[in-house]
């Protein structure tokens, strides 16, 4: 049986991991290569690198880093941020990424999903969606959650999968940063809708939130988080042990 995945997410700006990290025994806590190595050694099933740089210079630094990460870490790597064209797909895949995550780029140009899936395969295209409730409707937000696109999230996700997105990352803006648990009703709605893997993001505050996620929604494939891992509030080996004891299939290392 396929194991459920635990995925740390690293936001990279100008070559450094932002949001801060707080690990014992790691001197340079903002070095993406060292952090990636740390997570890989400690049981992460996959790593997500988001490029949040705006400048061309920063973008160049990001691809250098990605190359170094891919040379040293042998688990699947997903890359997102600034993916607007097929050339962007090509750029990060050449550096060793396995999957490419699109968000605002697909909103601006919905054909991007289909074109990328055709060229690189569905398994390579991840549709990341930032969703917030507006008047009882799940609404897609763009620009890092700042702009209401007016798009219905369920329709947008369905359309993305029909066009070839092989995986969905669902970021709930409503639960993000609150640390009160994942957005189970929103995730349930998306799991009902699509048959590709769904990755839950936004809201994890502790180990129990992951146990609740996977026991309540067996169709969810993975849990993604950033700061709770970076700050050591949740250690991946302990998290996986707790999930294993709760009967959730986990990759043990």
């Amino acid at each position: 049986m396929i194991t459920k995945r635990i995925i740390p997410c690293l936001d990279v700006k100008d070559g450094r991991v932002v949001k801060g990290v707080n690990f014992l025994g790691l001197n340079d806590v903002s070095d993406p290569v060292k952090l990636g190595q740390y997570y890989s050694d400690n049981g992460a099933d996959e790593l997500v690198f988001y490029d949040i740089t705006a400048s061309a210079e920063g973008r160049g630094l990001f691809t250098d880093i990605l190359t170094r990460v891919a040379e040293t870490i042998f688990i699947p790597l997903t890359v997102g941020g600034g993916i607007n064209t097929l050339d962007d797909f090509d750029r990060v895949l050449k550096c060793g990424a396995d999957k490419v995550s699109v968000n605002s780029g697909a909103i601006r140009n919905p054909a991007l999903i289909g074109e990328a899936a055709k060229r690189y395969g569905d398994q390579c295209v991840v549709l990341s969606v930032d969703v917030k409730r507006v008047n009882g409707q799940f609404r897609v937000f763009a620009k890092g959650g700042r702009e209401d696109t007016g798009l219905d999230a369920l329709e947008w996700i369905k359309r993305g999968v029909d066009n070839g997105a092989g995986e969905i990352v669902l970021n709930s803006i409503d639960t993000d940063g609150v640390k009160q648990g994942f957005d189970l009703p929103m995730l349930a709605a998306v799991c009902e809708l699509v048959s590709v893997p769904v990755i839950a993001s936004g809201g994890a505050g502790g180990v129990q939130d992951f146990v609740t996620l996977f026991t309540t929604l067996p169709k969810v494939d993975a849990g993604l988080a950033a700061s709770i891992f970076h700050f050591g509030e949740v250690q991946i080996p302990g998290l996986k042990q707790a999930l294993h004891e709760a009967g959730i299939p986990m990759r043990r290392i």
Partner: protein
Amino acid sequence: MIAIVDYGVGNLFSLKSSLSMIGADAIITRNADDLRAANKIILPGVGAFEDAAKKLRATGLDMVVIEQAKAGKPLLGICLGMQMLFDRSFEYGEHQGLGLIAGDVIDMRPQVPANLKVPHIGWNALKLTKPVHPLFRYIKEGDCVYFVHSFYAANCEKATIATAEYGTSLTAAVASGNVVGCQFHPEKSGKVGLNILRAFCEQT
């Protein structure tokens, strides 16, 4: 020296890096002489069978891989490269493979229960066939490796050295003499994957 066959299919960066991580000397090549000079060959591959088989034939390297494998050189096929070791594939039609291992490549969709997602993507546990093949001498039963595929090898019981459970028993690795194949990606399977590559590199 290990020759990684480059026929324009897939990204070989991680494979080369993982070999270099375990201290193996590898080159990515589409030169027949390199394949002949190497002491081991790796046939990678992702994507669709027909397209990949056509591209491999277009380079003429298919005949060199067959010639070298038949001469006893260790050959490792990975993912689609493993599927190409077989006689034929039924991925959207019927296509000839290299015929180095007896068996067929078939669609998993009719074989797995409807509640399971296809492609089979993610980490799954290996069930090792007894006696354990030398390729797995540094890993253990139940270790997880990373899969990405919708088709799998069947009718190859004699060659099967590992399986993975996914509603049905999927062929995860095969061996026939000096020819071995992994359906999963050892170069994306963490330490377990590196240990499988290490065992292959030590094969003589």
